[in-house]
């Protein structure tokens, strides 16, 4: 059993255990929410159902089985690659995820691009003039980014752009990038801005700290003494070394993006995976929520594994622990 001692394997095992825990937790939580798919579909008309009709519906939705049976039936199907069926959308959950995940991924990617494009330069600017005006402004921007809730920014953007500038691409049906790239990018603009500004803040801070840390290091002083110009210094030496903590911080924001995307997707009518889970919870479509949350958890665990590995490789303090 020596191979279990290997840190990589140990992490894998813990990750699997974590995922199992997620599966149980989401299953239990969903069943604990009052109401079921029948009441979600029919509302108060459910009161008009006769006992025979009710039994027929429960059998149809698969909620007449004992809980344990339901749990293992679902898990068994998942291991066979069948994530369940959405009777509402009349599609397998797999298909639903295949439709919605790319939307959220694109949104997350664009948000990260914006965050980096905004955050890194500001962070470097702030670091370059420590305790001067530039620093203060940079920190102020970071503070504002942290303090404005995503849903507030989203609402303000949507209301002002549609009334003041008549710009409302999100009122058109969602266009996938391979269908109409131009419209797609327009539709992603405000949502990505909203989320991007939110994560720009920690990126500004990380950049600033990283740059300040590196600047004080010996090899930079040596390069300066050798007469390397400031521009080259910034780019080649400082930035490249600062990139690692910046990238790891970015990876850590992935979970936030998945969660924060729900509100933004809702306000801007983007058919993403966050909204899918929200609708699934409201409609009490257990299979949809369980399987989607599981998939999100898998993605999240994977990203964390990778980021953690990079973090460990790079930060000697952590490695020594």
């Amino acid at each position, binding site marked *: 059993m020596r191979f279990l001692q290997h840190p990589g394997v140990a992490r894998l095992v813990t990750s699997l255990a974590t995922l199992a825990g997620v599966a149980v937790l989401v299953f239990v939580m969903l069943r604990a929410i009052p*109401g079921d798919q029948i*009441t979600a*579909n029919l509302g108060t008309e459910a009161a008009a159902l006769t006992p025979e009709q009710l039994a027929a519906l429960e059998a149809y939705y698969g909620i007449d089985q004992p809980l344990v049976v339901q749990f293992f039936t679902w898990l068994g199907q998942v291991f066979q690659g069948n994530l369940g069926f959405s009777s509402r959308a009349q599609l397998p959950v797999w298909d639903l995820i295949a439709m919605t995940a790319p939307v959220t991924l694109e949104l997350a990617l664009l948000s990260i691009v914006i965050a980096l494009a905004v955050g890194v330069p500001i962070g470097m600017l702030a670091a370059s003039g420590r305790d001067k005006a530039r620093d203060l402004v940079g920190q102020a921007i970071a503070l504002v980014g942290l303090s404005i809730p995503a849903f507030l920014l989203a609402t303000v953007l949507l209301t002002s752009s549609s009334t003041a500038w008549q710009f409302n691409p999100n*009122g058109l049906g969602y266009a996938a990038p391979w269908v109409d790239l131009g419209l797609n990018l327009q539709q992603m603009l405000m949502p990505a801005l909203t989320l991007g500004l939110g994560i720009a803040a920690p990126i500004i801070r990380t950049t600033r700290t990283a740059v300040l840390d590196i600047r004080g290091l010996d090899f930079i002083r040596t390069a300066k003494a050798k007469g390397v110009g400031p521009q080259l210094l910034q780019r080649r030496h400082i930035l490249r070394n600062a990139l690692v903590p910046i990238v790891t911080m970015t990876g850590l924001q992935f979970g936030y993006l998945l969660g924060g995307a729900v509100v933004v997707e809702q306000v801007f*009518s983007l058919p993403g995976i966050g909204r899918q889970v929200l609708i699934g919870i409201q409609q009490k479509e257990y299979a949809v929520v369980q399987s989607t949350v599981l998939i999100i958890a898998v993605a999240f665990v994977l990203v964390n594994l990778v980021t953690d590995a990079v973090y460990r490789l790079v930060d000697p303090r952590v490695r020594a622990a």
Partner: protein
Amino acid sequence: MSQIRMRALAGVVGLGLALSACATTTGTGSAGSTGSSAPGTAGPAGANPNATLVVGITTDPNSLNPWKATQFQAVNVLETMYNSLTQFDKDLKVVPSLAESWTTAADGKTVTVKLRQGVTFADGSALDAADVKFSLDKIKDPATAAVAAASLASVTTVTVKDPATVELTLSGPDAALASNLASLNLSILPSEATDATYATAPNGTGPFQFVSRVPNQSVSVKRNDAYWGDKAKAAKLEFRVIPEESAIVSAVQSGNVHIASLKDPLVAKTASASNVTIVKTPQLNYHVLQLNATKGALTDVNVRLAIQCGIDRKQVLDTAALGEGEVTGPNTSPAYKSDPNARPCPTRDVAKAKDYLAKSGKTNVVVKTIVSQGEYATSVNEAQNVQAQLKDVGISLELEVMESGAYVKKWVAADFEAAIALNGGRPDPDGAYSRYFISTGNLNKVAGYSSPALDQLFAQGKATTDYTARKEIYKKVDAELENKAVWVWLFTGYGYTATAKGVSGFEPNPTGSFRSLAATGVS
């Protein structure tokens, strides 16, 4: 996010395919009538026959099965594709649809239905009596869990007489049958339909045919050129999902969405102030404070009367819904409209309320009231206002605000003393209330009240088709309901239709139906 869903639109029926002349007789009884099948007349000025009309909806239809759809977005979408035996015209009178004419025997126990000829389903197969029998039998079958099964409670057998005639055998006269048959939930499907097919590929006789659906994004339908009635004005309809009503308004403003139904009076008010065309239509749905006369202090009619007298309904309407609506009595359909002042306290009378309370001998009455949040826009504000008003009388409403799922669970189980509710109204008073207030009604437990007098009145109302007689009978029902303060009916609201520039021909309907989309064009 809050999905403003209208509950209980099951059995709420569609509007007649308006526009050009459809000869109308109230099909209660003898001679039938013919619907016009003249080819489409010139449409609304400037309407582009090749246009796609975009309809904004706040959420994806949760079912494409017309027998199971109650959510109003699903109903609106399916109404464009399916027909029932009967339908309503714009005055909510029952007129022929797939049934060209029908005759009721003298004893009221047999109804012979003659089907319209030359009708085809979207897949091209012809409509015949076998399809009607199949549909009605399936609806009655408990395994189908059809929501309108109770509407066919009086039908014992459906017999095919010949391909164009169906005979319904009833257990007793049912004056509301023709009206109940007009519901989307009693649509006629082809006999080859199976659970799988009609949930994924709707196949109906309506003015539009199913094209495609992207879950949570859109549903598209196209004009049915073989339709038996007036051809649709627009070539295609796209029902586009935009979760927020305010975002829909923005889309209408920019012309991305052509037409949408709004439920929230606050959104509608803001929209009309921003120069979006809004048409408002009184609705059949009614806002009510349901009282459960089997529980607690409410078993005493004096307590209930105290509650009735302690509430100024206009004030509730003004504060919660910005005055958008009218105070109402039990029956909301135009033909049987109740007199909202025919009750012990037509206006708020705190002194009288206190008297009733004193008569009951109870003090410090506490009534646990359930309120839903997110189901519809005004529930919480109504509850708050009613609570504030009843405080003056000495009755304290303990509000339990809960999320939709929890509320429905309690409502369905009749696990409440009082409930702030928005219930579906129907054109026929028997359809609207018999299931609540007859002692054997399937919603009687929820209604919390029954009496031999009501049982008798409803039986009489069902047995005769004479309009004048029925009007008198249901007036007596109103009297009983209001004099015993069974529930406190508050108000009916408006339905709002937002239309963009260039849209014409849409006629909104008190039932919230969107059947008029067939007559709507956009330039």
